[in-house]
């Protein structure tokens, strides 16, 4: 029972972290129609910048400045790269971000080398907040929860209560009309792209110390972010939140409990074949839930796309 509570907290942390990435991505997608493959690369840049800054000025300065730098870089990418490619259509745009992701990974290796960086949790947060049945919950995780919830609230406030938010929401659905009303839509696009990548940067800054800061960190996260926003429904902030938490919990629980395929199959009345080691499907019988935990989101996505193409909360078909 206690373990369930611990898993709920762990899943929440994972989910909220995913949300910080997917929130920016879903905004960018719904506004510009671009599936930004380089989104996780900005997350990586956030971690590396924060590491570099933390060496000189400490963790907190890094938390403030690194996302800003990442956001400015993101805006620059939109202004000087994407906007140019935009005229050729969506596929070249997507491929542009794909190439960008490769290039960023190479550049990070060029600058920082290929090793894992010793980017650590700040001492002030390096203690155990509380324990549940011997499982310690580090204070840093509580801190991560607060940061991400804060960002979600802020985002929700800006989007629903401020004038800028209204314009963005309108531009999401009717870019031409908004432009006709005298708003600078390219500027809005650039701003949204910048903010979206900055959010990814924040995620990188706070995830770097726990999940590791290394050149492969973007690749590890890469496609799962897309999966999240597709499951949630493209363009839906709430969808992104729900899908992130869903994925966080599904993967956490799947890893925490060793459910074997043979148990399930036996449970529904199929007996284990006698000579399992000679059986063609022997590997399927021995599959356990932790083995497939990280591909469950993909299965979920394919199923959702087949049966509900708009995603959980999406209004339009992708």
């Amino acid at each position, binding site marked *: 029972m206690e373990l369930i509570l611990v*898993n709920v907290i762990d899943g929440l942390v994972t989910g909220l972290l995913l949300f910080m990435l997917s929130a920016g991505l879903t905004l960018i997608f719904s506004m510009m129609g671009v599936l930004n493959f380089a989104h996780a690369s900005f997350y990586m840049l956030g971690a590396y910048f924060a590491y570099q800054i933390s060496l000189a000025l400490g963790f907190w300065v890094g938390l403030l400045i690194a996302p800003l730098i990442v956001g400015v870089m993101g805006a620059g990418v939109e202004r000087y790269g994407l906007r140019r490619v935009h005229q050729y259509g969506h596929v070249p745009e997507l491929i542009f971000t794909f190439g960008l992701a490769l290039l960023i990974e190479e550049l990070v290796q060029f600058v920082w080398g290929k090793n894992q960086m010793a980017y650590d949790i700040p001492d002030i947060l390096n203690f155990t907040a509380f324990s549940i049945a011997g499982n310690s919950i580090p204070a840093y995780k509580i801190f991560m929860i607060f940061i991400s919830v804060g960002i979600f609230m802020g985002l929700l406030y800006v989007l629903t209560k401020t004038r800028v938010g209204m314009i963005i929401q309108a531009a999401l659905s009717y870019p031409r009309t908004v432009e006709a009303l005298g708003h600078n839509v390219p500027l809005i696009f650039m701003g949204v792209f910048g903010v979206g990548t900055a959010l990814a940067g924040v995620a990188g800054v706070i995830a770097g110390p726990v*999940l590791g800061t*290394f050149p492969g960190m973007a690749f590890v996260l890469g496609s799962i972010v897309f999966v999240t926003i597709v499951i949630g429904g493209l363009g839906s902030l709430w969808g992104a939140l729900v899908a992130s938490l869903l994925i966080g919990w599904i993967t956490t629980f799947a890893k925490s409990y060793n459910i074997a395929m043979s148990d399930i199959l036996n449970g529904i009345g199929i007996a284990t074949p006698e000579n399992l080691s000679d059986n063609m499907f022997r590997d399927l019988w021995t599959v356990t839930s932790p*083995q*497939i935990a990280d591909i469950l989101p993909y299965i979920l996505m394919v199923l959702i796309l087949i049966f509900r193409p708009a995603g959980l909360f999406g209004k339009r078909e992708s």
Partner: protein
Amino acid sequence: MKNITKLGAVSALSLIVGATAAFADNIKIAFIDPLSGPFASTGTNGLHQYQFAADHMVNEKGGVLDGQNFEIVPFDNKISPKESLIQLQVAIDQGIRYIAQGNSSGVANALTEAIAKHNKRNPDSRVLFLNYAAVDPALTNDKCNFWHFRFDANADIKMDALTDVMAADDSMKKVYIIGQDYSFGKAVAAAAVANLSSKRPDVEIVGNELHPIGKVKDFTPYARKIVASGADAIITGNWGADMLGLGKSVIENGYEGPIFTYYAAGSGMTAAFGESAKDRIRLISQGGINPIATEEARATYDAFEAKYPEGNIDQSRIFNVIGMLAQAIEGAGTADDVVAVAKQLEGMEYDSMWGGKIFMRPQDHQAIQDMHVGVHTNENIDFDYDNSGYGVFTESTVTMASMDSPTTCKMKRP
């Protein structure tokens, strides 16, 4: 203007041909390992150790035979079996007869088979495979061949030695085994179960599981399970980011016992573990460097550090590879006839500067050597890793580990 065009044409051509231009007198060793991509740090560090070892142990001492130098030719295989096979072909075409590779047993499997086929089909350009790090036991058992030599201990030997040390600790009651879901992870788990149940039948294995390799972002759920199981020891074969992620996560989430593992040092990992993992991680390896075994080794390490301040000698067996190859070539009197060289290597006994003897077992081409279990600490460390102040200090040693272990290898000799 014309000159520029000409220059351009010439340079374009030589770009392609350049790779094949050879220095006739050198004995070339192709180093086929990842130099770009996610595993590049290990590969690059290995390359530096090879280059340093060749210069330091052979070239600066006048070379082998009548003054021939060793030359390490790097090939980037991007840790892909396909690329490795292409690079192997390129290397063979450049007249290279010695292939060194170590990262990834998958690549090693592909290479050893390709080399066996190549040597059978092209007797004029046979090559030897110097495997310095791929530890899949199959390579010296079912899949063994005459051309393959393994200088590292295989996963079974390492586990045998590791469990010898573990078994001596009476307080250990519950063990958790976790690893990456692929051949090596499974081999480690199987060996751990077999060894523990014979050496310490009283010890309970409270968990034995596999996780996807290179895909786990957050190890917290695994850490929870391990803590909840009440394990007082963890055995894992994880490496790279999976090792770091697992190690940090279990320590952070309240696990108190030791982690017994294979690859948790160097390549940035020692620095990243730092204080948090002090006295918690125990590594099995050959050739311990703290305390250093010989003065020669100390001088070598000092020279290496002077040349590569950011590098580590974390695979000291590379020096054994170079030393043993040089000795074999001297013994055979030729570097071109790889069969003669291979026959010299078979059964060779070599005194390593890192301490102890190395015996290349002729029946399966598996090097038998001393195995050390070391602890991750910052005390008594002469040679740290990653300039972090932390390193691995040898706590116990198993001499000539698994000398008489059985092998299923049926070596076919030419």
